[in-house]
């Protein structure tokens, strides 16, 4: 077995999430690829919590579909996460015997799992390490049955609990060992053991998207962050607060979202690469100042880690429904580039790219991440951050400062930008329309020329083919377009479909806006059926593309709102129906 998806649910005190964290750390230390997602109820402490850990010997693109192993410490909590912890015919269900449920009568709708095993988890914990070590018993069971982390879990626990004293650590180790013993005494009817990892131990990184966004910002030269805490983006500010000061930067927790972006715009005006991060509601508040950055032509990176909306919506769940907001929430004619990372690993180069675009084109750039990418833990193959190209804004030369005009009309639309402290470069930055020197104007003619300048400078972006990934059979009649975290699900679906002989290709834009018409046109022209797969109610990418590209009617929207992520197998099922439909259509002219 080269792939294993484990889902666990319990109450707050059960330590389910910390078990998942121990499992993924030890598996990645051993050289497995892995992705872990967490999900919580809305309580600050306690309440139900769940996590999914997917392990594989090969690189992973998404948290996986139907569970191979389901762990329920109690059924109420497990069933609350129904859509996120789907049980299927191949699932081994491990559950707390104290629930009194008989293995033949699991409270699961319409499915008979491969195996159901009632384990006296609480009882085993009590006898071997105490009530609080239920999660260690569970890890022991998983290690025993599936062969993962026998040594590395203990090594990890020793590191993690070392500070808590020998007694706590010994209890945990005892509980883990008793889980392994219990599994050995009760072998699975159809034993499944995970293959050995293909990657050398200790060679992989483990990070989440918010971590990588913060560190990539430092690598890109960001030295100012202004922001306000908001789920699920806060970890970006938290990590930057730990790290950015060391690099001569500043993190300013502002009094509100507006002040956060305002301070970032001010820092950028002062010549510093700067960033703010937020989620949908904060993005709404920041919008006016984004318009200011557009007209004052100031570089700025704005991260929106999307969550379910509108308003407070589903603050802890992923959704891709802020795409329209990212592209169109500006007042007036304002075009701001929108980039979207597709995985934790991809968050790093995409964040650096966002800074490069902001600096090169002197514009705010929206980095549209989503909760899943931002908060899931993912194993990443190490790379050298120093190898990523880093750009900085074009400053005026000595000669250009002799007769300096901040908004000088140029062929590219890009004018050299000075900053306070630079002698000869003084100008008025303003939200009001201005002439080349920056002086306020109410001339319609100048307004049009300046708009033309601000749009023209972004023209080359639409030719950036490197901001798109195309995979699969280039001449395939079936195609998928997907973005953000959902793109990872489609990448897996593509591999599954190809393995079945389905001819399909996938287009993943990292550049969402402006829409690169040519790239889409070339992709769509070979297609006879397909879909745009995304996590929003309206199908916002699909609708955006229809606004700019001739999308044939055979290309459909496959969209679903947040809190209920797509599974790879659902996408493959849709592709299967398309292949059948194509074959039927193909035969249509002949019988008549």
């Amino acid at each position, binding site marked *: 077995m080269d792939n294993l998806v484990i889902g666990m649910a319990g109450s707050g005190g059960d330590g389910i999430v910390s078990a998942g964290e121990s499992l993924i750390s030890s598996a990645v230390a051993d050289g497995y690829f892995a992705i872990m997602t967490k999900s919580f109820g809305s309580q600050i402490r306690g309440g139900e919590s769940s996590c999914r850990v997917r392990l594989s010997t090969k690189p992973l693109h998404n948290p996986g579909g139907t569970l191979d192993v389901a762990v329920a410490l109690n059924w109420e909590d497990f069933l609350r996460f129904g859509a996120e912890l789907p049980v299927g015919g191949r699932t081994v269900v491990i559950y707390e015997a104290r629930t009194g449920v008989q293995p033949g009568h699991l409270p699961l709708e319409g499915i008979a799992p491969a195996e159901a095993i009632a384990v006296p988890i609480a009882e085993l914990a009590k006898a071997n390490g105490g009530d609080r070590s239920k999660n260690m018993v569970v890890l022991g069971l998983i290690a025993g049955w599936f062969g993962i982390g026998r040594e590395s879990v203990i090594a990890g626990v020793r590191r993690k609990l070392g500070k808590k004293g020998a007694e706590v650590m010994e209890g945990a180790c005892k509980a883990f060992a008793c889980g392994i013993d219990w599994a050995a005494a009760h072998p699975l009817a159809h034993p499944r053991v995970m293959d050995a990892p293909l990657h050398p131990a200790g060679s992989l990184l483990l990070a989440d998207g918010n971590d990588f966004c913060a560190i990539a910002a430092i690598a890109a030269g960001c030295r100012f962050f202004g922001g306000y805490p908001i789920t699920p983006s806060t970890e970006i500010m938290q990590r930057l607060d730990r790290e950015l000061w060391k690099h001569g930067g500043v993190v300013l927790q502002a009094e509100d979202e507006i002040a956060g972006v305002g301070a970032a715009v001010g820092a950028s005006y002062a010549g510093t690469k700067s960033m703010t991060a937020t989620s949908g509601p904060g993005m709404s508040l920041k919008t006016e100042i984004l318009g200011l950055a557009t007209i004052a032509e100031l570089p700025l990176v704005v991260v929106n880690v999307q969550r379910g909306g509108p308003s407070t919506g589903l603050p802890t769940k992923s959704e891709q429904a802020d795409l329209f907001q990212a592209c169109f929430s500006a007042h007036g004619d304002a075009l701001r580039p929108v980039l979207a990372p597709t995985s934790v690993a991809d968050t790093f180069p995409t964040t650096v790219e966002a800074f490069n675009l902001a600096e090169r084109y002197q514009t705010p750039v929206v980095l549209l991440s989503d909760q899943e990418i931002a908060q899931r833990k993912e194993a990443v193959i190490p*790379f050298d951050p120093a190898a990523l190209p880093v750009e900085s804004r074009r400053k005026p030369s000595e000669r250009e400062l002799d007769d300096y005009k901040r908004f000088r009309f140029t062929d590219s639309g890009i004018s050299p930008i000075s900053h306070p402290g630079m002698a000869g470069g003084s100008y008025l930055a303003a939200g009001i329309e201005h002439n080349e020197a920056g002086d306020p104007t109410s001339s319609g003619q100048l307004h049009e020329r300046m708009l033309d300048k601000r749009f023209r400078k972004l023209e080359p972006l639409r030719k950036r083919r490197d901001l798109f990934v195309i995979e699969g059979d280039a001449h395939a009649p079936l195609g998928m377009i997907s973005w953000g975290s959902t793109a990872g699900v489609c990448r897996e679906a593509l591999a599954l479909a190809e393995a079945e002989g389905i001819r399909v290709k996938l287009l993943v834009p990292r550049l969402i806006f402006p829409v690169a018409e040519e790239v889409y046109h070339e992709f769509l022209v070979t297609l006879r059926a397909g879909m745009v797969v995304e996590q929003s109610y309206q199908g916002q990418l699909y609708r955006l593309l229809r606004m700019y590209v001739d999308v044939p009617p055979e290309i459909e929207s496959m969209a679903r709102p947040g809190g209920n992520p797509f599974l790879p197998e659902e996408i493959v099922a849709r592709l299967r129906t398309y292949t059948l439909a194509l074959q039927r259509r193909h035969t249509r002219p002949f019988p008549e």
Partner: protein
Amino acid sequence: MSTCPPETCVPIDPKAFKSDLKPIWCPGCGDYGVLAALLRALGAIGRPAHEVAFVSGIGCSSRIPGYTTAYGFNSVHGRALPIAQGIKAANPDLLVLVAGGDGDGFSIGGGHVPHAIRRNQDITYIVMDNQIYGLTKGQLSPTSRTGTKTVTSTWGSLELPVNPLMTVLGYGCGFVAQGTPSDPAGLAALIEEAIRYPGFAFVNVQSPCVTFGNAEWQAAQHKAAMKKLSDLGHDPSNRIAAMDLAQHYGADLHVGVFYRNPEPPPTYGRQLRERQAALADQAKPAAQLLDAFRVV
């Protein structure tokens, strides 16, 4: 480093700070006097214009940065303070000024005032307080007196006015002064002193609107009611006495320094420089930035 080290700065001709742009203000507007006083203060301080960043929001008075040769930022309504704080945090060596009207500072942007004060950056904030919205042609402002009739308070305002002086004193501002363009030399001296104060400094300027404001009332006030705090024997190190006097905002026109913290606490800029210096040896080269994510 302080904003204006006297040992390195020598006075400059105030004209060097005046730009070629012609103000949009009405003839007789109090803001002309504020501009003249500010140019004098900047000349006396002697930092070159390109080392001055001058931020404003929206309103008649917020046009003022464009009338100077400093680096100006005429931003959006109510957000001058956050933008200025970003500038100052990014480069604490700059002399950072903020100016705006009573609407900008105490209505739409009022939420930023306490935080600018508690962050205590070495920034000078000048409010041109005319008790009216002039740019939009005569609506009620947060400092308009109760009962004021305007186009949006046809039957008279039902609200109490904000007292800018009490507000900033209450929030703990380290330097609080009030001036009037009727006393140009005094105003220039107050602005200069505010800039020299090492921390966040607030200057309220009673700047009459001759077009939409009750200019007659204000002018009468300026002449009849103007009381120099120095003449009253006020001790500007006494915050309670300052608050006592500030209660008369709207009735008496007290001019001078209400409060100057005799022991200014360290500024945000100084502390951030110290922190950056203390942590600098922990900076990692780009190639090592990912080491923290390695799991072994």
